[in-house]
């Protein structure tokens, strides 16, 4: 590192310029980090789900229901291990802005089908016996300061009226990325309060299968089973339903990539311009370095090293801030339940910062490398 002093001395030559350039990288990588965290909400969740889990929904649309009786018929199909179901509730807790996902669930098989959500046995037993019981994710419990035994009133929207629940349990995800914002209560409680013609319906039937390699075959088997029924089904893997959900929200990936692309292209122009100025203003110094014996390759690497140090420091700062930001949890109050910046995204961000750093330093570095000592000294 005997040349480290030279690199850092050059970087600190103009402190305001240094801070602004590092700031540009930091802002861009902070934005990248936040966008990556948003993207992962839609992409990483299904990835983390066990791949031997399928979901059956109404073929017409995700908002159409299925008869609960389908559960029993699916349970009897070969290769199916456990089956449960859920219904979307969409109630309001105190104010519309306090959004969190609420599901009326089947109690018996829920924990077997969704093993990534951990509820202490004692709490689950209480919940199973309490018709008005509820289980809530740790994030939502923390958000509203709920404790076990609290009475939680929710105003129904799809199912009008005032609904009251007893908080019997709090679940935690096995992975930090697992959604810890959901609110579950017993499907029986919902069902018994509905009008007769609304009863016995679910939004989705979730199941685990014996062998994950059988998912396609079993999916077709299930859909064939209900092909001539009033409610035809479509069976997806967890991943596919996640992708389908994202598609309904628009092409999030394209949107995020577009924003990220524009940000990084702008960053490339800004830092490239800065590095070009930084090299041009010390033309004579570069000439002196070459005159006293520094090679063209050394000069090229010196300029590139300065650019890369800027990228790593600025990019690292931006990603660290993004990580801190995501550690505070979902900033939208429920739309981004597992808002999280993964190590993979951090490494990707650093790699992108390095590429931008190298690209922005390359032209000035080549200029410095090709600079003829005689010409440079003549300019002074």
């Amino acid at each position: 590192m005997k040349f480290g002093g030279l690199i850092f001395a050059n970087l600190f030559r103009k402190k305001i310029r240094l801070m602004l350039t590092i700031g540009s990288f930091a802002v861009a990588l902070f934005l990248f980090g936040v966008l990556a965290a948003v993207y992962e909400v839609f992409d990483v969740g299904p990835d983390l789900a066990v791949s031997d889990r399928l979901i059956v929904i109404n073929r017409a649309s995700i908002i159409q229901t299925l008869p609960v009786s389908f559960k029993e018929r699916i349970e009897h199909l070969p290769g199916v291990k456990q089956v449960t179901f859920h219904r979307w509730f969409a109630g309001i807790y105190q104010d519309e802005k306090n959004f969190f996902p609420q599901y009326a669930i089947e109690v018996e098989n829920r924990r077997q089908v969704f093993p990534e959500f951990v509820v202490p046995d004692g709490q689950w037993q209480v919940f199973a016996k309490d018709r008005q019981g509820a289980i809530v994710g740790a994030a939502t419990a923390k958000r509203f300061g709920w404790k076990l035994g609290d009475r939680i009133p929710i105003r129904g929207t799809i199912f009008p009226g005032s609904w009251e629940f007893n908080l019997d349990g709090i679940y935690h995800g096995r992975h930090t990325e697992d959604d810890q914002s959901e609110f579950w209560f017993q499907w029986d409680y919902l069902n018994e309060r509905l009008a007769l013609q609304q009863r016995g319906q679910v939004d989705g039937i979730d199941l685990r299968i014996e062998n994950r390699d059988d998912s396609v075959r079993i999916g077709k088997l299930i859909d064939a089973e209900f092909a001539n029924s009033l409610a035809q089904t479509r069976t997806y893997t967890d991943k596919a339903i996640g992708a389908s959900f994202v598609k309904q929200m628009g092409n999030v990936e394209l949107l995020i990539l577009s924003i990220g692309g524009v940000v990084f292209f702008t960053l490339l122009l800004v830092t490239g311009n800065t590095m070009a100025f930084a090299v041009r203003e010390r033309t004579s110094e570069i000439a002196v370095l070459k005159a006293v014996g520094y090679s063209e390759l050394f000069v090229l690497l010196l300029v590139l090293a300065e650019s890369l140090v800027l990228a790593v420091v600025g990019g690292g700062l931006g990603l660290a801030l993004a990580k801190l930001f995501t550690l505070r949890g979902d900033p939208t109050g429920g739309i981004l339940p597992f808002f999280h910046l993964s190590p993979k995204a951090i490494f990707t961000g650093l790699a992108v910062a390095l590429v931008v750093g190298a690209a922005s330093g390359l032209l000035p570095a080549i200029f410095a490398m090709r600079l003829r000592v005689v010409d440079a000294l003549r300019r002074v």
Partner: protein
Amino acid sequence: MVRVHDPYNSSSLIRVRGLDKKYQRGGEEIHVLQGLNLDVDKGEFVAFMGPSGSGKTTLLNLLGGLDVPSAGSIGVAGDEISHMSRRKLTEWRARHVGFVFQMYNLIPVLTAFQNVELPLLLTQLSKLERRSHVEAAMTMVGLDDRMSHYPRQLSGGQEQRVTIARAIVSDPTFLLCDEPTGDLDRKRAEEIIDLVQQLVKEHGKTVLMVTHDPVVARRADVTLHLEKGSLVEAGLAAEVTGGGSV
């Protein structure tokens, strides 16, 4: 002994034969140096004078391996440099040439010590050895108490002394000084030339210097005049040798 016409000396430290340098400017060919011969022995102090555009700096650049001749040869301490690749020339400069420029060209964000240390970073010397070499060079130029100063904290004369320290720190074969006093007042110029003379007389350095200043040139052992690309006149400053010699 410095000779500009005798082509038979083979023991010189610097041996230039038939040196030509041409430039293309637009469609015009400019002949800067034409068939120049020169021999310089070890420990000599040579001044080059001449009007602007006469080729003084071009000659210095060629001797220092910063530029390549259009024709002719340049031998330094047995190395023929006129046909070296750019990479080889760079390595050769690091070992053999110390440069002193008119505008000092110190790196402003490095201290005097760090500026002088720059050529040594390319060597295999340890940090301790580098420090010892830098301290010796700074002592030689009388600035051992200014090592941690930045160039902006030094006077013009002091800056030029640091440049000289940087030029001699790696103990090069010879020094090339391009108008080393051109940016200094008379008193500071005298001090710098005293120092250069001291390097020649006490430490046996070989110095080739370009200057416009006749007072400074008179302090050299020999003054050579360049005009229209040729060494047309040799002013005797010290020893005169026969056969067209100076």
